[in-house]
């Protein structure tokens, strides 16, 4: 019962957020300098043809009419047509999005697999050699921007060791192995960069939990260290980490904009760059909206997972 209430509340909150996102996306793209009609027709266009195109695109209507028109379109699943590609925006995004998703998910997975065990290990050996070296390893990860790690990974694993291709994308449905080998480097580079935050969070969360009274009681019940760490502590400690993981996942989506460039990965990041470069307003708006949606949904997913792991939320909290 309370879970319904919880989801109901979160969805209501998301609807409000989404409204503001559409406002901002619309406002930003309309504040951008440059006349779209001029961009399309080139500098030699006549006054009449410009005006005709503006009328055709609806650009000379009042802004609020354009906004309402756009939102109504969105609600019908119509995101408009890309000015540059001449294809529906939704189609362009639908093609690119899964590729970026694959990269971001793989990167997050790499980060989680590396950071959670490291964080637990560091916490259990607080202030000793393993703790210090784990922290240093993680720290190296955030010491450089993601795209630089991309270049370092290409240099080391592709150029010197020749283990993986330098970049490019192959659809997994065509060539699974080829697709995965091309995924390793960008996902590894981004995952490595994401490791630090999650690891630090896991470590501090574990330390906090390990000093809780119920850990004391578990010891007084005769439980072994392994059971205490894995069964009693980690299940509690992971709860705040989930939020960080979700945040890092959406951060990864920001990271892909640059990283996709480095690895020639034709995802939503490169699409956004192209859209901005060519002032392709419907496409920019679409991309902003989609990235914002992903951000919102990953946080929503985090909250649901949070609720799954924390029975106090699952059952409606301390009434």
């Amino acid at each position, binding site marked *: 019962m309370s879970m319904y209430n919880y989801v109901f509340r979160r969805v209501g909150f998301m609807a409000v957020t989404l409204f503001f996102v559409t406002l901002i996306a619309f406002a930003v793209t309309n504040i951008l300098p440059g006349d779209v009609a001029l961009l399309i027709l080139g500098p030699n266009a006549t006054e009449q043809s410009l005006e005709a195109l503006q009328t055709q695109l609806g650009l000379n209507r009042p802004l609020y009419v354009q906004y309402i028109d756009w939102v109504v379109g969105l609600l019908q699943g119509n995101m408009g047509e890309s000015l540059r590609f001449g294809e529906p925006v939704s189609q362009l995004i639908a093609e690119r999005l899964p590729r970026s998703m694959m990269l971001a998910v793989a990167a997050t997975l790499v980060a989680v697999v590396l950071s959670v065990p490291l964080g637990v290990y560091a916490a259990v050996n607080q202030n000793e050699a393993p703790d210090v070296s784990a922290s240093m390893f993680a720290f190296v990860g955030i010491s450089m921007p993601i795209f630089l790690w991309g270049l370092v990974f290409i240099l080391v694993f592709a150029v010197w060791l020749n283990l993986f291709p330098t970049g490019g994308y192959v659809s997994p449905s065509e060539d699974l192995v080829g697709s995965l080998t091309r995924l390793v480097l960008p996902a590894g580079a981004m995952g490595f960069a994401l490791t630090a935050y999650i690891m630090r969070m896991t470590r501090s969360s574990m330390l906090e939990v390990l000093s809780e009274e*119920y850990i004391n*009681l578990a010891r007084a019940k*005769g439980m072994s260290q392994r059971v205490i760490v894995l069964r009693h502590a980690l299940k509690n400690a992971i709860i705040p980490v989930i939020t960080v993981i979700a945040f890092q996942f959406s951060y990864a989506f920001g990271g892909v904009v640059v990283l996709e460039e480095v690895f020639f990965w034709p995802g939503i990041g490169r699409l956004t760059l192209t859209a901005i470069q060519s002032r392709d307003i419907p496409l920019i708006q679409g991309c902003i909206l989609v990235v914002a949606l992903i951000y919102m949904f990953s946080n929503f997913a985090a909250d649901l997972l949070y609720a799954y792991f924390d029975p*106090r939320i699952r059952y409606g909290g301390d009434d």
Partner: protein
Amino acid sequence: MSAPTTATDREADDGPLLDVRGLRTEFRTDAGPIVASNEVSFSLDRGETMGLVGESGAGKSVTARSLMRLIDSPGEITGGQVVFNGEDLLQKTEAEMRDIRGNRIAMIPQDPMSSLNPVMTVGEQITETIRRHQDVSKSEARQLAIESMDDVGIPDAEERIDDYPHEFSGGMRQRVLVAIGFSCEPDLIIADEPTTALDVTTQAKILDLLNEMQEREGTAVLMITHNLGVVAQTCDHVGVMYAGNLVETAELGDLFDRPRHPYTRALIDSIPEVDTDYDELPTLDGAMPDLGNLPSGCNFAPRCPHATEACRTGGDPSLDSVGDDSSRAACLHAADLDLSESTVPESGAGRRDVDRSGEPLFEVRNLKKYFNAGEGVFGNVHLSWEGGGLPTVERRHVKAVDDVSFDVYPGETVGLVGESGCGKSTVARTALRLLDPTDGEVYFEGQPLHELGTSEIRSLRREMQMIFQDPQSSLNPRKTVGQIVGRAMEKHGIATGEEKRERVGDLLERVGLSRAAASKYPHEFSGGQQQRVAIAHALAVEPKLIVCDEPVSALDVSVQAQILNLLNEIQEDENISFLFISHNIGVIRHICDRVAVMYLGKIAEFGSIEQVFSPPFHPYTESLLSAVPHANPDRETDRILLEGSVPSPINPPSGCPFQTRCPKKIGDVCEQELPELESVGGADHYISCHLSEEEMSQRDSFITPSKRAETSPADSD
């Protein structure tokens, strides 16, 4: 996995169950080792209950944890023996110890709110102990867990076993902890302040449960507590600890009748009993010494009223037998001192009279404060699925304070007493406009606080000060005491410059600190001294009213008595009014002139201390009073144990809020009609109950009949 030891194994040994000899536990610190448990020796027989009492920092918990070898770095057990069932536990490997923990020696921890793992069901937490120590299948373990939940009085154990801790009330969680403790039928239970975090009515039930379980299972219990009332109700013999040392051990009766150590006497005397009047509580000066900086003589000498030169120089005395009874005491003069008499006579003069002929200083009328249930923008929005079909959206509120009225006259102390969650603190905060009231009126010297704007309230703040439970969090850690107290004077334009400094010094002396304290920071003071600073801060602006929110709850009893005396003294000198909030009836009774008993956001009873407590009328007041454990083992009290727990203020019961638990419920009228707070016997004594006065006073009271006749308003009419 180890098989449980059988009864024959256990009884093979004739010695005591537990024999602790010269146990020493040290903590390494930057300033050198600190001895938290110093050469502690005692023994405990099967089925016996021993109390280990002392104030915080005395070393009780460290000693208990040392017995289970649960001391973490930088702590270390550096000497002695812990002979349990004939074997020295200090010689065992960690793996062997794990087989003993939870199995032969189990622990019942202090705080039911934090001692259960929030993400595991209570069933998982009970069965894992059983499965760890007994060779049983999963379903057998579950069955055993259900039985143990039944044993500790958790209703519907079979349905509730898969619930999570947060779905249980504090008292029920404590029962789960008791079930875990007893689940493997241990020989020894170490109960570390098992009722300290509980409300008094719940405490009474848990103590009864512990006594009952112990009798049934024949388990020995080591009861660690700071509460002598708890000791008196549960223990066979007692050890008193002070600064890491055991300073007295005695049979329960001897300890209370004839304490052998002056500290024990002082500890007993500093507790305000719920049915005795005192002019002043006896106090011990100072506080327990810092373990890193012990005095050269007897540890207690600096605070001891009987200390001689020999006490101050000759090192700490050892624990030796005294006289012909079984008592042992670590005091040079144990044999010569007669400490059998309490050091304070009861009050002869009676209560000071408060002049209530004028206008009240502070008046609260029909105050209401509702909070949104839940947090955030949509926090209080709930889908209601009742009535079938589509759910309806509704907003829910916590009625923290619901129609509360009372007044405070100049120079008077009015108490608000009740169990946690009854709304007493919210009343204070809302009345002072620290929170905005939902409805109702508040007058201070005739000015309507509820109508005033923020700036007008701010200028009135000078007249109304507040003292909180935790001085450490209410004093700015980056400012010196002089700055803290002086700033209040400056802000309200009372004094500046040299005059301010002078007055700060005077004030610090007034609250029992030295003038030099002004240049120190709050963390350099002990808890009691910090509370003195907080009082000085409140007094700095010469207020007319001070709201004290649980001001002594975080303090040790000897320090608590000092602070209570200080507050009384200040009131006498300055004619300040206090609104005093506490869950502790003994404290309320000692310090207040009138008291409001609160239950679930409403006032159940309001009147003078005599009217409300001697004898109690409202069934809730009566049960509250009866649940307080007396620090006197000879006193038999008929505890009135309340059913269930306090209902949720989001969805309070219909009719009288107390009807779900009331032992004297009449019937439908209680369920349907909210009783008015009505004057009884024509006096200023108000009770909210459907029972008539006669019906309320029919009881087997623990107040002696003669005393009752004197004070019962029913007789005086």
